[in-house]
């Protein structure tokens, strides 16, 4: 009993020390506050994969009422911003300068061919941004399809089909890329605070030799680990709060799941990130090397391989297998589901289980590896 209260007092002292250091060290402020805020703002305002108001050149070789009605869809669509050009050469020049991302060309023989049911509209897209080009292509098809359907309804012979698509986007009817970027943002911020910051501070203690003096006191290994974890854990939760607030208030991303589940999964992920940070820094006792390693092991994969930016299912098998080792993969799936879909137990339960298993594994590993020894 006396042992327990002494242990609590020691842990509390370590936590207080760590909190004071966080407040006074500019680097923890940069990693804990400046970088997350920057990420939130950049993700919220800077990044968007939405294709809206795409500049396209309209090259109508022989304007006529038919062509005008054909093209009206482009003028009305929120997705396009047409620029009229006089000839193809002008259009190609605009495209070469990337002043436009595509050219819609209606040849002078269009009305005649259309009468035979052979009318074609040419769409030339700039392929350098392949993703954007493909979406532009799909939108152009949709605009023209809508026009054809309209014509058909007005009694002109069927020129389309016979099968047409009605598409529906579940969970994100507004087709807003913030919806999937923001959960990704939370992952990055938590990784930054959990793994990166912890690595820096623990490696700093090794580097400055402060641990050597600390070791020769009644303090126990578990107390040192706890004293390091708790403050950064709290900081991570603040980061999470900021991100969720930004998601709801600034970017109006819906939240359809339960806050409790969000809390549980974030806590698990944060613990994993902290665990990885602690392990890396006690394995590599130099601040510089440790933080580089953390960047490569946690931050880059969280960005590129967690599935928030790029679809995991389309990656090669080997890379897919690699992603199963990444805690970020499970956290991203949880976040996207909780934000946009709700408490889908078939996602939540297995992913939480994996995260929990990782927490236990890492805790056990840190316990075994961290010794009060300089060897």
């Amino acid at each position, binding site marked *: 009993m006396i042992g327990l209260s002494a242990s609590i007092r020691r842990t509390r002292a370590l936590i207080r020390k760590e909190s004071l250091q966080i407040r006074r060290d500019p*680097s923890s402020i*940069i990693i804990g506050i400046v*970088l997350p805020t*920057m990420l939130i703002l950049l*993700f919220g305002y*800077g990044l968007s*994969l*939405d294709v*809206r108001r795409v500049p396209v050149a309209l090259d109508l070789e022989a304007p006529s009422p038919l062509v005008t009605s054909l093209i009206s869809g482009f003028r009305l669509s929120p997705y396009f911003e047409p620029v009229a050009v006089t000839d193809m050469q002008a259009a190609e020049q605009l495209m*070469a300068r990337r002043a436009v991302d595509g050219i819609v060309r209606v040849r002078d023989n269009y009305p005649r061919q259309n009468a035979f049911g052979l*009318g*074609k*509209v*040419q*769409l*030339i*897209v700039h*392929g*350098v*941004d*392949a*993703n*954007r080009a*493909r*979406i532009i*292509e*799909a939108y*152009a*098809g949709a605009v023209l399809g809508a026009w*054809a359907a309209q014509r058909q309804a007005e009694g002109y012979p069927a*020129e*389309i089909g*016979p*099968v*047409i*698509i*009605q*598409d*529906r*986007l579940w969970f*994100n009817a507004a*087709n807003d*890329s913030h919806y*999937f970027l923001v959960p990704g943002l939370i992952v990055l911020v938590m990784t930054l605070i959990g793994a990166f910051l912890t690595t*820096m501070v623990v490696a700093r203690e090794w580097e400055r030799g402060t641990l050597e003096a600390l070791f020769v006191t009644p303090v126990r290994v578990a107390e040192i680990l706890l004293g390091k974890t708790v403050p950064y854990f709290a900081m991570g939760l603040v980061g999470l709060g900021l991100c969720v607030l930004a998601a709801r208030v600034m970017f109006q991303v819906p939240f359809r799941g339960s806050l409790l589940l969000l809390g549980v999964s974030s806590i698990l992920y944060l613990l994993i990130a902290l665990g990885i940070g602690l392990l890396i820094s006690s394995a590599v006792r130099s*601040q510089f090397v440790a933080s580089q390693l953390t960047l*490569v092991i946690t931050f880059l994969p969280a960005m*590129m*391989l967690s599935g928030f*930016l790029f*679809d995991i*299912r*389309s*990656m090669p098998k080997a*890379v897919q297998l690699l992603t199963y080792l990444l805690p970020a993969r499970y956290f991203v799936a949880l976040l*996207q*589901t909780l934000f*946009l879909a709700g408490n889908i137990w*078939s*996602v939540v339960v297995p992913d939480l289980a994996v995260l929990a298993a990782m927490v236990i594994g890492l805790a056990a590993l840190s316990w075994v590896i961290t010794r009060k020894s300089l060897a």
Partner: protein
Amino acid sequence: MTEIVGSLLRVLSLIRKELLAILKDPKSRASVIVPPILQCLIFGYAASYDLNHVPFAVIDQDRSFASHQLIAHFDGSPVFTQVATLSDPRKLAAMINSRQVLLALDIQDGFARQLAMGQTASVQIIADGRDSNTAEVATSYAAAIINGFNAQWRQDHGLPASQPLVVTRAWFNPNLQTRWSMIPGLIGTITLIQTMMLAAMSVAREREQGTFDQLLVTPIRPVEIMIGKAIPAMLVGIFQATNILLVAQLWFRIPFAGSFAILYMGLILFVLAAVGLGIFLSSIAMTMQQAMLYGMVVIMPATLLSGLSTPISNMPQSLQLVTYANPLRYAIQIAQRVYLEGVGVSELLPYLWPMAVIAMVTLSIATWMFRHRVA
């Protein structure tokens, strides 16, 4: 004259020492070569908006020859993999929720009948919008498959020959593969991260180890230090860019449309700007830790606002202005345009001079700082 020779000798000594410091240790030699190639490979495979093996479900409420034919078209595509056939549309929700399928093809009762009557039949495509970009792309693939089905149907049923409304042609990237745009973009991105960090660390490391003072009491001048620091980092940067270029050509086999001389001219200017930024950070940082943090504070927005992962034109005006100070923005444009479009020098001028300005400004400030911030 002897003064110039002396100056040259000092710069050469410094360059030699810097290269020795980077390349002598096998570990640091490997760290210059392996990570860029590895990143290029992983990102080349993983960082793609292209889809394949998209799991989808079929709800065939029609169960007709026509519906089977349509489904066969989907099954024949490498993009889609059918993982379920549902008889009950209500079961779909669970499958999408749990991420078992990304997309569902819903063929309603009466599909074949409508087709047989020469009417237009519609099918419903339902996509998981948690990742709106992936959903968008998957839907556009589905549309292309249905177009193919339509053409086949018309041909088989003696209808006027297939007549897609839109004929699309993509410039520079005929199959619209993300990889084609991503990998040339990575030449700039990966080179920036590595060379800027290298340059940022180089002076900070000397400060931390106390060697900077030792250097400053020798006859070497600040300008000479700067040149001696910049050139090795630039050489390493060009070397890394070359490695990535080789991976792009030999491994991913992306055809190179432009001139190597022009590409390298752009790259040299770019690494100069990157090294300038790095040395500038180095001149304001007192420790390696600070240099690294400042580096992160610069690299994060630089990569996110480079236009590689999301288009610059989607950003708000104010952020678009910020991107003009981002050398990576120009490097990506240069790499993509020279690589894929094969543009000449005149087209690149608008990208070249801003980088020259960035290099000049950062390097002059850094030189001044070397002399005046030694406290």
